[in-house]
């Protein structure tokens, strides 16, 4: 029907028809998939949820005399950064915690500040305290450094999330008799609530379920700036069971994404505290799906009613790694505020902000309409449902704790 090249020409001329992943549902219902595919050039998606595998790397520049942070220790506002690189390259993960954070010693821990918050503060343009100790070498003699750094003064500041943008996610519940605190939020006992975490019909990979347009190299909205899909994300799992419409019924594909942190915005990268669990980062992502044919439109027009996911017990099954679902629900049911599990009416809560996902899809549409954002051909495809790519549990091998070879 049309190629990405043709779509880009339309975008440049300001003639491209761009709709959001919500609007395309209505359009396909009214006019039919065939007609909608003829009319629409691009569908914009969005998601705004917490993702613990977010992180950033920095080159902080060389001080005088020089110091070798590599192999030393490095703190950013007391949060430890990873130093196993060259002299002044460091990397910070969203879940990193200050050494003196009490964690869950006082249960449930509050986790007020960590890597995710440092990333947000840097993006806000706030100065962050860098504290380094090192061992000193002939070429890097300095052993201590304490200074404020600012994102604008760094050589590179790059957001690099090794897993993001989950294609579908579990609904978390608690079957036990006491409240539990999880990465899916606080779960009240005896099915007190059911928490979900996906933008559903707005979520990028749910609107391109077989990764026909999203691949390695795809340009995306990332944290309010421009980013790219770097690779499949960790735990990418394209072979999970799918409904007849192709939509995975459980957590499936993921993306590793990368982009210049300097042009991102703090309202789209939010440091977050999960009570009793830890610190993480909420990341805003938007992907533009080119409508190449009727098939890409049919997938992009899938609605909440047609996207199903599994209800998982986080008191026993999840922590013990015991497979099993308490049932299947769709996102329209989840968004209604109540679902039925084992005959019980259970209120739902969301960790992913649907209204922000909507804003992202809207903003991406504006970028494209203005001609600021052209679409990209993937450089290589993501491993798909037909591949042999799977997500395996750990293979533990017993270690002789007495020492020596077993």
């Amino acid at each position, binding site marked *: 029907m049309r190629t990405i090249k043709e779509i880009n020409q339309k975008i440049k001329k300001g003639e491209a028809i761009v709709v959001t992943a919500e609007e395309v549902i209505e359009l396909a219902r009214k006019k039919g998939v065939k007609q909608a595919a003829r009319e629409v050039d691009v569908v914009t998606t969005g998601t*705004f*949820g*917490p993702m613990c595998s977010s992180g950033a790397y920095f080159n902080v520049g060389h001080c005088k005399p020089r110091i070798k942070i590599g192999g030393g220790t490095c703190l950013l506002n007391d949060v430890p950064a990873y130093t196993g690189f060259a002299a002044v390259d460091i990397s910070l993960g969203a879940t990193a915690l200050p050494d003196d954070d009490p964690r869950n010693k006082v249960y*449930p821990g*509050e986790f*007020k500040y960590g890597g995710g918050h440092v990333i947000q503060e840097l993006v806000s343009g706030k100065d962050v305290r860098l504290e380094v100790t090192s061992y000193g070498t002939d070429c890097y003699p300095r052993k201590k450094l304490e200074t404020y750094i600012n994102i604008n003064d760094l050589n590179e500041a790059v957001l690099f999330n090794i897993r993001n943008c989950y294609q579908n996610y579990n609904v978390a519940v608690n079957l036990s008799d006491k409240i539990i605190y999880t990465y899916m*939020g*606080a779960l*009240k006992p005896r099915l*007190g*609530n*059911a*928490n979900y975490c996906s933008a559903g019909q707005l979520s990028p990979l749910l609107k391109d379920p077989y990764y026909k347009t999203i691949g390695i190299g795809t340009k995306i909205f990332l944290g309010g700036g421009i980013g790219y899909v770097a690779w499949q994300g960790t735990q990418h799992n394209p072979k999970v069971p799918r409904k007849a419409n192709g939509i995975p019924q459980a957590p499936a594909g993921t993306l590793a994404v990368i982009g210049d942190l300097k042009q991102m915005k703090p309202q789209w990268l*939010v*440091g*977050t*505290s*999960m*009570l009793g669990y830890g610190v*993480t980062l*909420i990341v805003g992502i938007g992907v533009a799906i080119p409508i190449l044919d009727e098939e890409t439109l049919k997938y992009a027009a899938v609605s909440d009613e047609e996207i199903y996911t599994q209800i998982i017990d986080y008191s026993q099954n999840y922590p013990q790694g015991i497979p099993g679902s308490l049932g299947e629900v769709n996102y329209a049911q989840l*968004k*209604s*505020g109540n679902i039925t599990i084992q005959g019980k009416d259970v*209120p*739902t*809560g*969301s*960790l*992913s*902000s*649907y*209204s*922000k996902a*909507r804003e992202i899809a809207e903003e991406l549409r504006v970028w494209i309409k203005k001609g600021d954002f052209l679409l990209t051909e993937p450089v290589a495809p993501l491993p798909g449902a037909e591949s042999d790519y799977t997500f395996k549990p750990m293979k533990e091998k017993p270690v002789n704790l007495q020492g020596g070879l077993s």
Partner: protein
Amino acid sequence: MISKRIVLHFPHRLVDQPIVYKLVKDYDLQFNILKAYVTPQEEGLMVLELVGEDDNFNKGIEYLGSCGVKIQPLSQDVIRNEAKCTDCGACVPICPTNALVIDPLTRKVHFYDNKCIACELCVKVCPPRAMEVHF
């Protein structure tokens, strides 16, 4: 009839006096204690739902003021930091009084402070910590 949720601050010198009792006996007011404690500064803090005839209610409030009790509507004490809230909805199933609800159309979270009982369950459960209590 007036029904209001108010926060009372009792100075140290009043902590051992039966002030709420007077509200019932002299002003015929109904009360429901939502929260009560003595702060480390030995100031008493009480969150009350107070119900009564208009005239009685106003006189009761006047009485509290004359004793030196500081009165504030609860809605001024539990607030949502709009700049921090991401409208995710993690707080919604946790709130016991449905003071936090998600709008089915806009998918934005509304905070009805008139329904809030200051239990503070939402405060620590909120991922970006947007719910704030300022007693």
